[in-house]
């Protein structure tokens, strides 16, 4: 096989380009050192190809591998994770280019590059990437064509066109397989620890500035589709995430109750007013294992569990887009044992003396009544000139003192933090809750979009035997809660442009685009076992088990393959002799009407035999006379007239034998 022969310079260039193209989308998340290494190696290979020099000897390549490993180790701190793994595959691909001696090596490079393509999907599965991948496959196919073209007579445009045709013929088959191939809930084996990059979004701790930095991101956090058009008003759109309990003077952290501990929630009657909502959330990957929900989730899928802190947990980290249905009902959360009580009142010792004093003063004012104290604190916020801003001043060691007594400028995390702190100082169990507040309806498809810019922090306080939500931001900047982040009087230049723009058209286009994204997320990226079942039900198959799917798949594949084979193979079989082909077409038309051409009957004889027939209509007569004459001229007389040929072809195609009435 010509696996033994050396690929041409053109082929090697194409391979170099292909490898770089497959790695390109991954650059967004790779450390600069790695990108630089890849580019340097690629440039070196380019130089070698262009100047026609030989590849460097094996030991130099080994040195490159060692250097690459060193850089990876420096960037990622370990070599056995997903990120360094992918970077290593790319580097190996590029280094393999230096070792191409036969066509077989070229194939190995192409196949390795396919793995690189696949690793893109860990970071992005958008429709743009899908289109880009299709383009890459076209390039790949044309490289394979070039490798098998031993005389190097094909041109690149020719090959690319061939490849595009190949892709088009392949898309329907791919769709059939995509829809019908049974989806097994993975994973079949475990994922490495660092499987995913840090996602933008909430993390599991909060310190001054952590929510603030999410405000400028218009990235979608999740989308919600409500049932029955019952949608909560803006001020009720509190999407509860996790509870943060431990405070070290700067940062709030999680401190979960054991998994076995159950939440103690009394749900209100479903019939009562608008306190019950049914909805489906489509959540973007977070690399965390908790979900967002309205207070409090009542009905949800069995694979999720409601924790003691009333947070909905999933078994695995969410690394793919998932959808989950919930029915939330208003309720009374009574989850607090005496033993738990302590952890919600702990504060670091010896800090923020000013705040301690303030707390004492407010408690005295409130006569040591919890409710009155809460009101006093909230009044302190509203009356002492506190400002809701995205650019608060930096806080020092005694952050609370600085904020409450001096700067009085902060964002929701400051207020939630300060409020919880003051509650704990008075001995009232209190905790910080982070999640999202708000959401905008997409008028095109009637679903709600919640973005990272809607991230929010608030507080929960144990009062009268139950947890109550208290959001100090509602006191300081009520518009934020009533209307959303763009209406809260915040600095517009910090907010995402998309939300702030006045252009109605831009907003409409953004909604349209998001609609499309949503559908893509649900039906393509989120196409799991459940959605497959749903699709099959839509198509009329009630029970779509794996065996039915496989049967359908086999049938459709067979039918389709045969169809495709017929289509591809028949269209190309026409003889180059158009003239002869159409003459034979005419003869078959005449045959159908009963005029059989004898085996050795020439066109002249045949013509006169037909025209002898008295029953022919004048029109048919004239047509036939023309056709036969044209045929004789072109086929025997070697007349080369494009016009005549076109006329002849047209007349033959349109010809229908008519007899006189």
């Amino acid at each position, binding site marked *: 096989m010509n*696996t033994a022969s050396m690929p041409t310079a053109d082929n090697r260039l194409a391979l170099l380009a292909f490898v770089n193209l497959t790695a390109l989308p991954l650059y967004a998340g790779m450390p600069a050192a790695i990108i630089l290494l890849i580019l340097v190696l690629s440039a070196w290979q380019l130089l070698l190809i262009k100047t026609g020099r030989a590849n460097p000897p094996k030991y130099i390549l080994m040195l490159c591998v060692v250097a690459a490993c060193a850089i990876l180790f420096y960037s990622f701190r370990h070599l056995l994770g997903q990120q360094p793994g992918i970077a290593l595959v790319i580097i190996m691909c590029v280094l393999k280019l230096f070792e191409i001696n036969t066509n077989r090596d070229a*194939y190995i490079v192409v196949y390795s590059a396919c793995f690189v393509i696949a690793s893109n999907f860990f970071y992005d599965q958008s429709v743009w990437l899908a289109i880009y991948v299709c383009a890459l496959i076209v390039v790949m196919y044309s490289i394979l064509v070039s*490798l098998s073209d031993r005389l190097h007579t094909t041109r690149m445009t020719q090959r690319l066109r061939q490849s595009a045709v190949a892709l088009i013929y392949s*898309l329907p088959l791919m769709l059939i*397989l995509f829809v019908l191939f049974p989806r097994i809930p993975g994973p079949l084996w475990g994922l490495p620890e660092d499987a995913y990059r840090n996602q933008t979004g909430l993390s599991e701790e909060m310190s001054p500035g952590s929510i603030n930095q999410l405000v400028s991101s218009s990235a979608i956090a999740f989308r919600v589709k409500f049932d029955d058009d019952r949608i909560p008003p803006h001020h009720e759109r509190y999407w509860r995430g996790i509870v943060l309990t431990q405070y070290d003077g700067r940062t709030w952290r999680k401190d979960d109750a054991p998994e076995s501990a159950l939440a103690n929630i009394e749900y209100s009657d479903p019939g009562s007013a608008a306190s019950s909502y049914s909805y489906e959330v489509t959540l973007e990957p977070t690399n965390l294992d908790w979900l967002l929900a309205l207070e409090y989730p009542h009905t949800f899928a069995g694979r999720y569990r409601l924790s003691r802190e009333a947070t909905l947990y999933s078994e695995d980290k969410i690394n793919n887009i998932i959808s989950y249905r919930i029915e939330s009902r208003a309720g009374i959360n009574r989850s607090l044992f005496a033993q738990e009580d302590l952890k919600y009142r702990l504060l670091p010792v010896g800090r923020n003396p000013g705040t301690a004093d303030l707390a004492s003063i407010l408690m005295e004012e409130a006569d040591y009544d919890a409710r009155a104290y809460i009101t006093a604190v909230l009044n302190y916020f509203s009356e002492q000139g506190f400002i809701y801003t995205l650019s608060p001043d930096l806080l020092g060691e005694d952050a609370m003192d600085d904020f409450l007594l001096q700067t009085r400028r902060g964002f929701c995390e400051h207020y939630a933090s300060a409020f919880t702190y003051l509650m704990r100082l008075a001995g009232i169990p209190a905790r910080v809750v982070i999640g999202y507040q708000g959401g905008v309806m997409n008028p095109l498809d009637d679903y709600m979009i919640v973005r990272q810019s809607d991230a929010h922090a608030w507080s929960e306080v144990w009062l009268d035997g139950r947890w109550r939500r208290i959001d100090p931001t509602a006191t300081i900047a009520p518009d934020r809660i009533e209307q959303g982040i763009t209406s809260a009087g915040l600095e517009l230049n910090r907010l995402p442009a998309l939300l702030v723009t006045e252009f109605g058209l831009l907003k409409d286009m953004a909604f349209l685009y998001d609609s499309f994204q949503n559908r893509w997320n649900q039906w393509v990226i989120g196409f799991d076992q459940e959605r497959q079942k749903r699709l099959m039900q839509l198509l009329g198959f009630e029970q779509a088990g794996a065996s039915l799917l496989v049967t359908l798949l086999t049938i459709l594949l067979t039918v389709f393959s045969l169809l*495709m084979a017929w289509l*591809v*193979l028949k269209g190309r079989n026409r003889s180059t002799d158009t003239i002869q082909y159409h003459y034979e077409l005419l003869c078959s038309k005449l045959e159908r009407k009963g005029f059989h051409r004898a085996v050795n009957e020439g066109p002249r004889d045949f013509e006169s035999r037909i025209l002898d027939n008295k029953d022919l209509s004048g029109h048919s007569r004239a047509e036939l006379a023309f056709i036969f004459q044209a045929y004789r001229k072109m086929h025997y007389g070697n007349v080369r007239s494009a016009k005549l040929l076109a006329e002849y072809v047209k007349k033959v195609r349109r010809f229908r034998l008519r007899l006189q009435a």
Partner: protein
Amino acid sequence: MASPQTFLSRLTLPKAFNFIDKRSGPFDGEVSLTRDRVYILPTRMGLLFGVLLLTLLIGSINYEKSLGFMLTFLLAAIGNFALLATWQNIAGLTLRAQPSPAVFCGEDIRFTVQLINDRQVDRHSLVIGQDGADHDVVDCAAGQVSQAVFRVRSTQRGRHQAGRFRLYTQYPTGLFTAWTWVDLSMHALVYPAPSEVKDAELSGDERSGEDDRQGPGQENYSHLRKYHFGDKPNLISWKAAARTDQLFTKSFTGTSPQRYWIDWDDIRADSTEHRLSTMAGMVLQAHEHNHLFGLRLPTQRIDIDSGRAHYHRCLSALALY
């Protein structure tokens, strides 16, 4: 070129494959490659492609990546398309045998096959060969005719049957091999290898060169005459041609050309083959020196004559003895 790495060429075919024998001929000089004559299988790289697909599939299942499925299935579908395209690159071709020139034993016989492409599609990288080796690679554009040549080293005098040869292609993609085995009843004549002629082996009245008559001979240059079609090129006076733009042939006087018989009985040799080789050598020499000669064999006699046709007639007689 290296031998093709397909499965079939490395297996010895069991009895079950006898149907191939029936389908591959022998045909009378021309055959059209219809569906039942073209076979197709994946190449090594094609199998490796399959492994790639399987790996991508398992990875997509494990990491639950929908686009991973999309990639896998798209590659599978395009592999399917490649199968059709490779098949189409060779099927429908018409093969026509061309006559093969005769050679001396020990030389390579060249068998030329005409590939006729009467479709509207270009065909590329068609490889012809025999016994596992590749001999020639050709393209065949739409509506065109190409020639492909495969070679056999001759080891015996006589009529050599080409037998079955193999035409295959891996274009496009190189993931599949589509091939056919065909026997077009091609044959070529192999003359006995000429051996050195020693004077001692000649006998009798072969030489009659003592004549000093004026006549067309080859010893003394006498004059130029106009070129007749068929005159030997080495007798043309090129200097005169350069000067006058017309061709002139040199004419000699001298002794008349030698006339003699190359006779079977006159040659001392150990075996038939040796004798035939010697006679072939003599024929060759006689022809080179433009002598008039005749051939006497136990089974036939060829009268004294000269010229190319006569030369080949004599050698054929020797070959087929």
